[in-house]
């Protein structure tokens, strides 16, 4: 009994310390603290080519790559990424779960009320993934609403709001568990259309290699959205420093060198401004 007791105590101590050692998030979002720490915590999704997590756990994609480069210029050498649902990113950065969101979060007026954005970096139009030949002839969100089709969207994404605003019945909006599942749901016929930005759908189609799937782009009556890196409202100093470094990279061509290989148009981002997208100062 004595031996078992000893083993039990060791196990408890080990267990408790292991739990503690998983790392209590450091509550820093000040540039100096980030530089000292050596890394910044960013929120990402897993939606190529915006964000990607390889099977080995490496984080890449246009948004994290760009964030890494900009942060390096600011003296922060690395990023630690955590995968999150889009809807959880804003509450997450507000709660200091991460220091910033680098996931291709589109800049929109209601989001500008909740967080600070950097200047735009990644722009794209909206597209539909449908069965080849577009049997239901879906060209806009209004078409989806009027046809009673089932539309798949990612949780917290822009497409969900667009669908609701266009009048799609909530019962016909299927929140897809993760971006890759959307293609499977379409193949199985559980949804009739899957809405995501053009580059995301292109990537999914490339990987699916299924001739029965096709893309319709751009979705009619829908603007081109641009994303930016999101910060807490209180971290304006960090955001401004980020903007300065980002602007420098845009001017020097480094920005284009990072985003264009993923398929993004550097010009589109450089011609847009955050003030425009937010509908006011941010």
């Amino acid at each position, binding site marked *: 009994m004595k031996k078992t007791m000893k083993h039990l105590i060791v196990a408890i101590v080990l267990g408790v310390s292991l739990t503690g050692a998983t790392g*209590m998030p450091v509550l820093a979002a000040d540039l100096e603290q980030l530089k000292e720490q050596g890394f910044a915590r960013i929120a990402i999704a897993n939606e190529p080519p915006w964000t990607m997590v390889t099977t080995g756990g490496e984080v890449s994609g246009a948004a994290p790559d760009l964030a890494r480069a900009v942060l390096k210029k600011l003296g922060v050498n690395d990023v630690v990424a955590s995968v999150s649902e889009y809807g959880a990113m804003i509450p997450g950065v507000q709660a*200091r779960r991460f220091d910033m969101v680098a996931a291709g979060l589109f800049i929109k007026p209601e989001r500008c009320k909740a967080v600070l954005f950097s200047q735009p970096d990644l722009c794209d139009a909206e597209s539909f993934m449908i069965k080849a030949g577009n049997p239901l002839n879906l060209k806009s969100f209004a078409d989806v609403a009027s046809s009673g089709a089932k539309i798949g969207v990612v949780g917290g994404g822009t497409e969900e709001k667009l669908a609701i605003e266009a009048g799609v019945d909530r019962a016909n909006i299927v929140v897809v568990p993760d971006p890759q599942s959307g293609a499977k749901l379409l193949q199985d016929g559980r949804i009739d259309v899957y809405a995501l930005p053009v580059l995301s759908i292109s990537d999914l189609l490339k990987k699916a290699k299924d001739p029965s799937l096709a893309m319709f782009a751009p979705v009619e009556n829908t603007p081109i959205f641009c994303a930016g890196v999101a910060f807490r409202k209180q971290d304006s100093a960090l955001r401004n420093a980020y903007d300065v470094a980002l602007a420098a990279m845009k001017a020097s061509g480094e920005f284009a060198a990072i985003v264009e290989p993923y398929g993004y148009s550097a010009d589109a981002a450089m011609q847009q401004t955050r003030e425009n997208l937010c509908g006011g100062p941010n």
Partner: protein
Amino acid sequence: MRRPLSNHTEQVLEQWQGYIGLILQGAVVTIEITIMGCIVALIAAFIAGLGRLSRFWLVRWMATAYIEFFRGTSIFVQLFWAYFVLPLLGVPLSPLQAGVIALGLNIGAYGAEVVRGAIKSIPREQYEACTALNLTRFQEMRHVILPQAVVRMLPTFGNNSIELLKGTAVVSLISLSDMTFQAQVVRAQTGSTAVPFLTILLLYFLFSSTISTVIKRLERHLSRGLDGTGT
């Protein structure tokens, strides 16, 4: 002389090796979470179980509140609340911490009833003998009651651990890279659904069978020297 496989077959085999490796990585995480969760559950079960037998009504009340609270909602709800809401209330938790704490406290609440039941099932003569021998309450618990009670708790603790193991699958929904999460990753990358899911089903079954065997062995080992009256 072995005929070399065609290039394509070799590629496919290598790919699948990589995917099986991923699932095994997930298995390691699943085992880690199960062990840590069981430790938290054990501690919580004893504190709450003994708490419900306390002489002080406040302690009893707090123990009961904890037990009913955590048995009143599922692991999924508790996990999501711990992961999404607690940080907004000022308690940031990583997915791993949220998972271990939610699982541990949940199963601990069920374990508390087991602890209480087992201690109460010890025949009164044992308690009376302790009084006759002038043992303090602590000595009574430590040397007489608990050793016998623990043996009676083991079978149900075994079931509880298996419930915890099965519960770990839910942490995949907060992007923790356990076995279920990795199976989803493999599914997304390969388009094959049956193989990854069948693999992890077999692995989960293997783990739960192992737990059952270990508990049975432990039961036999600890009941040596005891009266053997326990059922």
